[in-house]
């Protein structure tokens, strides 16, 4: 075995990743990278001492060409000054798997137990938090949160309804990250809102909605060439990619192979993974302890 894929419950990530690295393996480690902040910082050190081995973190949506394109659009100013980010990842079911005879609920439904899982924030919202850190080359400075076991009062420990507000001082942005197990209408929402336009993302599709003035400009430029470059849909948006993307994991596995064989640092690496793990833990701390969490200098890894 030259490489391992670690897709266990969150509480096992750190030890397995360290053991695999020490055994000389390349590692693809599922998100969230680690269960705790100290583990995240320690894994950064361990990985740095073994630079010959790839350690890639499984924030797979990041690897679709669509998400690279959106990062590029942000950098080139297509969105103008971004001040608001709206993210949701909702469903309407209890988030439980059936427990086969002879096994315990804790073994199968580890996501319900605090000692194994970071709940909805770690399992779902981490993807969007990770993208914002990466796309804007930043991290939050202040994190507020709330949540509860509001519908599925079935003995679970992790919240079935969560909301976190992340304040990004350097970029002047507010990020709203929420998930519920009790309504599926909107499902996945990821909207990045700026003075010149908004991007609305699904895992495999994205739409750009220019603001009024931006749209006029784009159409004027268009008029010069005489070509109809932009086609607007009924609510004023234009698709960012011509075709629907494959599942993010497909691109992520290609990247894992390329990083191993070409000795490249993964785009989603131990440092970006640790940064996102810190965001998740601070969000959970804010939700469960009713505190406002602040970023500390020792979390600055990127």
């Amino acid at each position: 075995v030259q490489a391992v894929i670690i897709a266990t419950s969150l509480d096992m990530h750190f030890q397995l990743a360290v053991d695999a690295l020490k055994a000389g393996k390349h590692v693809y480690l599922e998100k969230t990278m680690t269960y705790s902040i100290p583990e995240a910082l320690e894994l950064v050190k361990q990985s740095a001492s073994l630079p010959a081995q790839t350690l890639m973190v499984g924030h797979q949506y990041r690897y679709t060409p669509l998400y690279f394109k959106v990062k590029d659009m942000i950098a080139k100013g297509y969105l103008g000054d971004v001040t608001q980010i709206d993210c949701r990842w909702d469903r309407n079911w209890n988030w439980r798997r059936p427990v086969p005879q002879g096994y315990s609920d804790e073994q199968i439904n580890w996501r319900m137990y605090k000692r194994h899982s970071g709940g909805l924030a770690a399992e779902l919202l981490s993807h969007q938090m990770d993208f914002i850190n990466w796309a804007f080359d930043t991290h939050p400075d202040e994190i507020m949160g709330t949540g509860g076991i509001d519908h599925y009062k079935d003995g679970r420990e992790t919240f079935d309804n969560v909301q976190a507000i992340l304040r990004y001082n350097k970029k002047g942005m507010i990020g709203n990250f929420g998930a519920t197990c009790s309504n599926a209408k909107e499902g996945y929402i990821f909207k990045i809102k700026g003075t010149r336009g908004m991007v609305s993302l699904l895992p495999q599709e994205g739409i750009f909605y220019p603001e009024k003035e931006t749209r006029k400009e784009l159409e004027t430029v268009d008029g010069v060439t005489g070509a109809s470059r932009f086609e607007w849909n009924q609510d004023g948006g234009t698709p960012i990619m011509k075709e629907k993307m494959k599942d993010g994991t497909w691109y992520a596995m290609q990247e894992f192979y390329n990083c191993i064989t070409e000795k490249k640092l993964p785009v989603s690496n131990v440092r970006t993974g640790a940064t996102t793990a810190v965001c998740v833990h601070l969000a959970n701390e804010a939700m469960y302890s009713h505190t406002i969490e602040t970023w500390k200098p020792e979390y600055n890894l990127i």
Partner: protein
Amino acid sequence: MKRRDFIERTGLLAGGLLLGSSWRAAAPAGPVRVGIIGCGDRGRGILSVLAQLKEQFTLTAICDILDFRLETTQKEPSRFFRKNLQGLSSVTGR
């Protein structure tokens, strides 16, 4: 200094330098031999993607602490990988 001594010493020196630098391990020839630790929904989802990337990956081991997951995983459409496949039911038993 004898030639052999020289080579041995410089060889050691080079080894030391390489270890201390950011030089990375030699690229594997052919597909990367990969093991999956954790064969729940996500592990098997990744497995189904690996099955589409035969040029890049060969699955050589699967691991889970729950036996029924190993049994399920061995029946997956990725069975063409299964030559020499080891199923380990304990993460410490590697």
